[in-house]
């Protein structure tokens, strides 16, 4: 029944012309038959005709009733409304294009960004019951000792697991490929509730000394490097030139902790390993089902107190205070979330501006058509029909925008994802899916309905009066007020958006201009994976040979080794007791980074020795154990004293003599407080000395990198090269969040200015077109064109200026929302807010002057002729 009914309607609709023809023919037949009957009863031809028509009862009304019974009335009216709407748009192309494009940009940006927000903030993580997973005491790093101490003590959590905060680059097979691994405890997959696609994960004991070396592969690595071969399970592969057994492969889509990690290896929790006592782990666990947040909090308090009885913490590092947990999501997305929400807010402002532009279009069109509407009401058109037509028009406009916006979103999504502050390979997991296109069009339709609400209301309320007064002073004043309000609103939104964007852009510039303490220019870096199992002497020889060979490469002026690169590699750190400061209790001892370097490092990086001496080849194993400390370390811990010759506790727990003070260098992040640093000579502790070769070249960096790679192979075939990157790029990468944010915000500022200008231009040129007749008459009566121009400009510039002023005030009030992103500029930065105001003012002036200029060129004759 339903289906046939619909079929009938569709059929009738598709053959509408024929149906109309048939209806006419049917009625003509009826009238003829009636007439013939009447004539046979003795009526004259004319009488019969009249009587037949009278009996039939009004052809038009009857045929309308018959048509109504086709059940296609609404659809047909809508189709004609939409056709009508597009005809109307065609008559005013400039304004239509402006309205459509602004809405398209707004919708496109909103959809794109929302896809990103959904992909990062809303999409479930690849673990079971995500909300039960908690990361302990972020941002504290945990030590193996603490992990083992807490394990049996928790009551509210199921078993604990730990993982390395940083990924580790490992050479795969023939060492030509490096892959990023996460080092985890044996139970991590159980805690996460993640099961392997094939094989199995780790078993208890895999993370203890003497365990067979094992690895679990990620799906992507398994597919790309091992051809998806399922017999890989149980076989051994070479990892950093060491045989490791593959126990399993994780399923597609699983990632932990970040998507760029491609394999997992068990930790070695060895109490005899000094690393067991240094903080480099994160602890994760699952809340036992059925427990309240209160139970969890109580257990955390107990654990924190327990920690205090067992471990001594420095004040800045006190795990008994500030104890608390984070959900895994908060832990992983900590940095991204506020930035994304900020951008989403900016997009919403942008969408608002677009809506304002479209509202201006639709509202002014309604005003334009008041005479038409009144005429049609007089001719019997229902108010509902008129309201429907307004809705149809704005829907036609907005859905067109929606479609264009969807196309824009699809085109721009890739650029957007790469320019957003997304880290750790998250950008590779984001996709723009088809439902977003539906959202784009629906969003536009909602906007269309929204902006048509006001005119529909005025039509339904019968507020169509004033056709006569349309051109009266009062009518004009009302329109002028509305137009002024629109112009001012555009300007306010534009200034606010642009000012916020500029504040952030300038912050990034400040961070970028910061002194890093080292000179990255011309410095290339290579992660060197030295052969395993080398005797200490052989390893020192390997390092020395490599360094000498590197220096002999043409174009390379200096070379040296460091264990971890500044601003890239986070860090190995620990507490450092000071021999001459017994007043500092063990728990208040300063925390410091440890960096193992060779004598060439400082020279290569352009880091000055402020006092004392650099390391020399004489600082070898067996010689006096020495250290160089950073400037801040010296200043804060040896106030008014000479640190040279004093002794501090090294990472091995033995005293080291300070022989020099090195220039302060950004170690970890470009902003924030710089941690203390202690430099140690590589040969005096080979065990932890990861090797990053740094070399300064005066020539081409690519050539130098290739040459250095060859040298490493040449010196020892079993050695391998991991990441190779220029130091300038290292700095850029460390800034990538901010640089990308800057790019995106610059785009926003530009769009805000553009949309503001388009909106103002649209409204002002519309106002001008409405007064074209008036201008023509006045110019015919002798007004000069410059006078007309001045008047238009004056009328437009006042709202532009007041909108800018309101925008400045709004920016000052709203800037606290971006405060946490600012660096080196205050919330009320004059240059940012003033710059935005000036830019919008200029755009606004231009947008007013162009139609003003056109008004001044109005030809009186042409206008009078058309009147």
């Amino acid at each position: 029944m339903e289906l046939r009914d619909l079929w009938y309607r569709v059929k009738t609709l598709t053959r509408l012309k024929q149906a109309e023809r048939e209806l006419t023919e049917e009625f003509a037949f009826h009238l003829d038959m009636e007439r013939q009957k009447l004539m046979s009863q003795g009526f004259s031809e004319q009488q019969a005709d009249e009587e037949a028509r009278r009996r039939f009862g009004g052809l038009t009304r009857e045929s309308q009733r018959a048509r109504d019974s086709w059940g296609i009335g609404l659809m047909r009216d809508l189709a004609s409304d939409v056709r009508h709407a597009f005809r109307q748009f065609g008559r005013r192309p400039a304004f239509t294009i402006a309205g459509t494009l602004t809405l398209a940009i707004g919708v496109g940006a909103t959809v794109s960004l929302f896809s990103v927000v959904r992909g990062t903030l809303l999409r479930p993580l690849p673990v079971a019951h995500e909300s039960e997973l908690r990361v302990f005491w972020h941002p504290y790093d945990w030590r193996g000792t603490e992990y083992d101490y807490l394990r049996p003590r928790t009551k509210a959590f199921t078993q604990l697991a730990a993982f390395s905060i940083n990924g580790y680059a490992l050479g795969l097979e023939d060492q030509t490929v490096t892959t990023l691994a996460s080092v985890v405890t044996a139970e991590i997959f159980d805690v996460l509730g993640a099961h392997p696609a094939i094989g199995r994960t780790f078993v208890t004991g895999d993370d203890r000394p003497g365990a067979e070396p094992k690895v679990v592969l990620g799906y992507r690595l398994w597919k790309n490097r091992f051809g998806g071969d399922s017999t890989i399970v149980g076989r051994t592969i070479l990892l950093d030139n060491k045989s490791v057994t593959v126990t399993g492969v994780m399923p597609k889509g699983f990632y932990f902790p970040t998507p760029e990690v491609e394999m997992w290896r068990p930790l070695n929790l060895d109490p005899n390993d000094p690393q067991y006592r240094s903080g480099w782990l994160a602890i994760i666990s699952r809340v036992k089902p059925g427990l309240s947040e209160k139970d969890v909090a109580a257990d955390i308090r107990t654990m924190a107190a327990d920690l205090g009885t067992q471990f001594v913490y420095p004040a800045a590092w006190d795990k008994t205070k500030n104890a608390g947990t984070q959900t895994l999501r908060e832990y992983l997305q900590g940095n991204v979330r506020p930035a994304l929400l900020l951008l989403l807010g900016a997009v919403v402002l942008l969408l608002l501006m677009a809506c304002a532009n479209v509202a201006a279009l639709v509202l002014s069109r309604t005003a334009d058509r008041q005479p038409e509407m009144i005429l049609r009401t007089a001719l019997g058109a229902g108010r509902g029909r008129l309201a429907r037509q307004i809705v149809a028009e704005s829907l036609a406009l907005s859905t067109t925008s929606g479609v264009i916006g969807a196309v824009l979103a699809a085109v721009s999504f890739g650029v957007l994802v790469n320019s957003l502050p997304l880290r750790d390979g998250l950008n590779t997991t984001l996709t723009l899916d088809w439902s977003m296109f539906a959202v784009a069009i629906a969003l536009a339709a909602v906007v269309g309905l929204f902006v048509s609400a006001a005119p529909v209301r005025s039509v339904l309320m019968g507020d169509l009066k004033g056709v006569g007064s349309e051109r009266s002073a009062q009518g004009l004043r009302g329109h002028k007020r509305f137009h002024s309000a629109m112009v001012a609103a555009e300007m306010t939104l534009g200034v606010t958006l642009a000012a916020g964007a500029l504040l952030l852009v300038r912050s990034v510039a400040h961070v970028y201009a910061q002194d890093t303490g080292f000179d990255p220019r011309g410095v290339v870096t290579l992660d060197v994976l030295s052969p395993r199992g080398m005797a200490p002497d052989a390893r020192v020889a390997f390092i020395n040979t490599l360094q000498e060979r590197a220096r002999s490469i043409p174009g390379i002026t200096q070379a040296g080794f460091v264990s971890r690169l500044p601003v890239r590699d986070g860090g190995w750190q620990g507490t450092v007791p000071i021999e001459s400061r017994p007043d500092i209790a063990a728990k208040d001892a300063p925390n410091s980074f440890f960096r193992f370097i060779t004598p060439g490092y400082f020279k290569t990086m352009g880091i000055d020795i402020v006092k004392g001496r650099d390391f020399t080849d004489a600082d070898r194993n067996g010689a006096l154990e020495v250290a160089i400390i950073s400037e801040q370390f010296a200043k804060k811990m040896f106030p008014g004293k000479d640190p040279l010759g004093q002794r501090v506790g090294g990472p091995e727990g033995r005293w080291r003599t300070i022989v020099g003070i090195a220039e302060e260098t950004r170690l970890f992040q470009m902003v924030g407080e710089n941690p203390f640093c202690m430099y140690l000579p590589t040969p005096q502790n080979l065990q932890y000395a990861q090797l990053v070769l740094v070399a300064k070249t005066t020539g081409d960096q690519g050539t130098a990198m290739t040459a250095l790679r060859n040298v490493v192979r040449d010196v020892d075939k079993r050695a391998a090269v991991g990441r190779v990157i220029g130091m300038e790029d290292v700095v850029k990468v460390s800034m990538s969040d901010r640089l990308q944010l800057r790019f995106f915000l610059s785009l926003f500022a530009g769009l805000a200015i553009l949309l503001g200008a388009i909106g103002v231009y649209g409204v002002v040129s519309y106002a001008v077109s409405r007064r074209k007749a008036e201008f023509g008459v006045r110019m015919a009566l002798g007004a000069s064109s410059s006078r007309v121009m001045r008047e238009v400009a004056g009328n437009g510039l006042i709202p532009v200026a007041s909108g800018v002023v309101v925008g400045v005030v709004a920016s000052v009030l709203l800037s606290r929302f971006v405060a946490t992103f600012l660096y080196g500029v205050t919330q009320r930065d004059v240059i940012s807010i003033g710059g935005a105001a000036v830019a919008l003012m200029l755009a606004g002036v231009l947008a007013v002057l162009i139609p003003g200029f056109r008004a001044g060129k109005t030809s009186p004759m042409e206008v009078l002729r058309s009147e």
Partner: protein
Amino acid sequence: MGTDNSIPYGTLDLLILKLLSLEPTHGWGISEWIQKTSADSLRVGQGSLYASLHRMTREGFIKSYWQDTDAGRRARYYAITATGKKQLARETEHWTRLTRGVGLVLAANAV
């Protein structure tokens, strides 16, 4: 104000279906037949007639086709469908019950 000889709301469909169950015919034929068989006591408004015909076509109770009349004039004929026959049976039963009920009530002379 004369006697109201318009057809009660809803019964026009029933009359049309009844006639079409006897033989297919065109719109004018239907209106003539209703007028004649009811001895001029019922008169069909042409507008409601065609609205009803088109609506019932949509609902599938009747179908229409073009055919020449005996006089050789092209006209749209309407014929009842199988669904329409079922509908007629249902409506007839309903009508009989309704009129008998109404008749009984009107014939009552005491509470």
